[in-house]
């Protein structure tokens, strides 16, 4: 049995999915967490039920990514039961989608989630009456606390029904649907889609266009507007019947602080800088502890074992890879994800998007662009995947470009472990400043040269909520798990290849080849340039390789301060890591992925060369 979860963004579908299946799904307090379908299976009284968590959407009839995914799912007959998840506090708006789904006349169940928040704002919903109007079972829940979620599966099995509710459409629309149905032998839902210009068949599309043009002439409104209006009126009517308002508990208006220019923007800046500094400090401290621990208890005993040289080289490479993986994953990325999870769950991120809207317009994006940019500080890969929530190709392109330049945790390791450790904190901050300038300049240029339309922000503001520790930890864990799964194998393979190269002396040959360029242009010894190249595999490997090739962890004794600084800047700026290039290719195509890589290569080398001239 297959069950699909459908609902508006941010109504708690993912929490319910998680409760029903135990499969870890990321849950956020901002719209658009689930971009692809998520599958999870559970077993109840010998029945196997597969749940499908669909992206949150406001409508089934549009051409955005999530609308297409959900529409094709509903049309495909894949689901035996459709579960509509509604936010009880925003019933009227949520019913709009439910009414659309119920037009498919498939067995349904309605979950009225977030009953606690609704009650707090003085809203009482008569679930029995709602159930009788819609003609399907309505289950009130507070999913985040697990309240009443236990009765969902039994209800799916025993009492999912085909809804009876019907939207009354304008009589011109009804007449047009009827004529399309009889002449072209269409289903009701296909007819209403055809009327809005969504028909595969050319003949039908032509007939529907003629009809809708006639209606538009009569109403001076688009057909989509009339249909939306009819559905909203129906939703309003139902909501008026079943929602009873009481005097709400009024808390202090925190939003007044968060979404005004003063103090909203200083608060936003303080939060972002505070997070980066905290991650930087906690991360460096933890990393040192982890590296020392592995050195003392794994590396040294291993070296003391006296294995044959090849085996020893391979073993050392493996240990180094694991050390590097844990050394950045937990201290930097996990700490960062904890803060991001806090920001997301509190609902602050949507406020940040609102505040940043104006600034981001200058860079050819809009407020929502702040989400990928902030995520980029953790790891570029999920950040680029989140670029999907921007609506136009132009915005996605600009955002991907800029995200690639954002110093991720791995690059933070280089800045912390190299510049902060050997030169000082101020120098480390100056690297960030330099990167910020590069990002801003790139954004300004891109917003002028990138073709395509700009599409402003239409973003629902998430209600402010107190984040729960459990959800924050769970989400950070899921993300770090994903990171480890993607990054660790790559790290290990790359490390072993590097070890083998070194063992067979290939490295020396390459160094000889690169030496003239390296020494004259960047002012770096040739082994440092080799290390830079390894940074393409995983950014922080540039640092580890440098240590291995230099033969000492005390880099201050073999490199000058200027060389350390140049090395750090070049490795932070130039060519994204392999995983980032791969995800860029997937999201915006191979050509743009190559353009971005080439651009970063040029910028990185240019910055290095200029610094070399200035510092020497």
């Amino acid at each position: 049995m297959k069950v699909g979860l459908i609902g508006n963004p941010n109504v708690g579908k993912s929490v319910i999915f998680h409760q029903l299946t135990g499969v870890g799904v990321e849950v956020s307090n901002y719209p658009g967490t689930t971009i692809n379908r998520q599958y999870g299976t559970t077993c109840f009284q010998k029945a196997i039920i597969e749940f499908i968590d669909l992206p949150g959407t406001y409508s089934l009839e549009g051409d955005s990514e999530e609308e297409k995914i959900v529409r094709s799912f509903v049309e495909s007959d894949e689901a035996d039961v459709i579960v509509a998840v509604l936010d009880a506090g925003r019933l009227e708006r949520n019913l709009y989608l439910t009414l659309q789904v119920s037009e498919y006349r498939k067995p349904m169940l309605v979950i009225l989630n977030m009953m606690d928040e609704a009650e707090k704002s003085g809203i009482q919903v008569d679930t029995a009456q709602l159930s009788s109007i819609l003609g399907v079972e309505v289950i009130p829940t507070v999913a985040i606390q697990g309240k009443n979620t236990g009765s969902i599966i039994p209800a799916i099995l025993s009492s999912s029904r085909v809804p009876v509710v019907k939207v009354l459409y304008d009589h011109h629309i009804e007449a047009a649907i009827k004529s399309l149905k009889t002449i072209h032998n269409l289903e009701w839902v296909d007819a209403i889609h055809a009327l809005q210009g969504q028909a595969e068949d050319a003949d039908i599309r032509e007939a529907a266009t003629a009809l809708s043009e006639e209606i538009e002439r009569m109403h001076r409104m688009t057909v989509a507007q009339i249909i939306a209006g009819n559905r909203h009126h129906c939703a309003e009517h139902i909501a008026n019947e079943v929602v009873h308002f009481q005097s709400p508990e009024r808390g202090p208006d925190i939003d007044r602080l968060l979404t005004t220019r003063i103090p909203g923007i200083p608060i936003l800046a303080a939060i972002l800088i505070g997070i980066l500094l905290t991650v930087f400090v906690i991360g460096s401290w933890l990393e040192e502890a982890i590296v020392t621990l592995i050195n003392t208890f794994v590396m040294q005993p291993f070296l003391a074992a006296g294995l044959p040289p090849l085996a020893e080289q391979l073993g050392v490479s493996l240990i180094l890879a694991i050390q590097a993986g844990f050394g950045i994953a937990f201290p930097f990325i996990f700490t960062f994800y904890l803060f991001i999870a806090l920001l997301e769950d509190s609902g602050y991120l949507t406020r940040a998007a609102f505040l940043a809207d104006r600034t981001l317009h200058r860079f050819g994006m809009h407020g929502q662009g702040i989400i990928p940019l902030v995520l980029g500080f953790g790891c570029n890969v999920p950040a680029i995947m989140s670029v999907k929530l921007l609506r136009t190709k132009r915005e996605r392109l600009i955002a991907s470009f800029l995200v690639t330049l954002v110093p991720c945790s791995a690059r933070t390791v280089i800045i912390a472990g190299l510049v902060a450790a050997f030169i000082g904190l101020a120098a480390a901050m100056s690297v960030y400043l330099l990167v910020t300038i590069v990002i801003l300049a790139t954004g300004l240029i891109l917003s002028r040269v990138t073709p395509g339309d700009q599409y402003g922000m239409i973003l629902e503001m998430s209600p402010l909520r107190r984040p729960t520790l459990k959800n924050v930890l769970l989400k950070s864990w899921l993300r770090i798990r994903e990171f480890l799964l993607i990054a660790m194998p790559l790290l290990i393979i790359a490390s072993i290849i590097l070890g083998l190269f070194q063992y067979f002396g290939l490295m020396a040959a390459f160094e000889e080849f690169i030496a003239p360029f390296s020494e004259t242009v960047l002012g770096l010894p040739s082994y440092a340039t080799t290390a830079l190249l390894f940074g393409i595999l995983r950014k922080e490997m540039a640092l580890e390789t440098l240590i291995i090739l230099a033969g000492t962890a005390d880099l201050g004794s073999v490199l000058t301060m200027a060389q350390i600084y140049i090395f750090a800047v070049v490795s932070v700026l130039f060519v994204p890591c392999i995983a980032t290039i791969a995800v860029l290719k997937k999201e915006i195509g191979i050509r743009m992925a190559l353009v971005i890589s080439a651009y970063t290569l040029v910028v990185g080398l240019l910055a290095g060369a200029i610094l070399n001239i200035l510092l020497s």
Partner: protein
Amino acid sequence: METTSLREDILETLYKFQSSGRAAPVAEDLATALGKEPGELRPVLALLEKEGDLVPNPDGTLSLTTSGTETGGRVMRKHRILECFFSEMLGMSPDTASEEACTLEHGVSDEAIERLGRYIQGKPGRGTGLRGIRRGKGWQTLTLLEAEEGDTLTVSCVRCRGPGVRLNDLGLFPGTEVKVVRKISGNGVVVRVKDCDIALSPEIAAFVLVERTG
């Protein structure tokens, strides 16, 4: 019915004379302007005088009273809005547009003309013939971007097709009541629609026309 039209036509013509600063007409001038025989007008003029819409001057010319001016002005405005609609939006020739307007101006309700006027005003780059009328009182149509924080407004028109679909889905379509929750100058706005807060970029907010309701 026939007399009503004629009465309104007379008041309108008198209003035109009066507002253009020309000398007050005598009954014969009126008849020429309306393309009628003076004999046809006499009974109607008497009726208008009796109802207090116009006063004959000692020299035989006719002047409007306050209530007559008001009616004349209203009919005139209806005429111009209809004429503008027919010629500029439906593409009819100015002459036919004027003729049609002459017939319809007597039957159309105040509300319909009010809405039609607002509709024409909402169209960018059109309605040039309406400059004078646009300034009339009680025409509080503005875009969401121009609204003030705390305003409660009713959406009258969503002008864009692409983003408009998403706005429709969120409940921002003609007739919905919205409240401006937050506004930062130069930045976007946050509006409350159907109990949900929606943040809009300035260029989107500028697409949404609203009316003040309270």
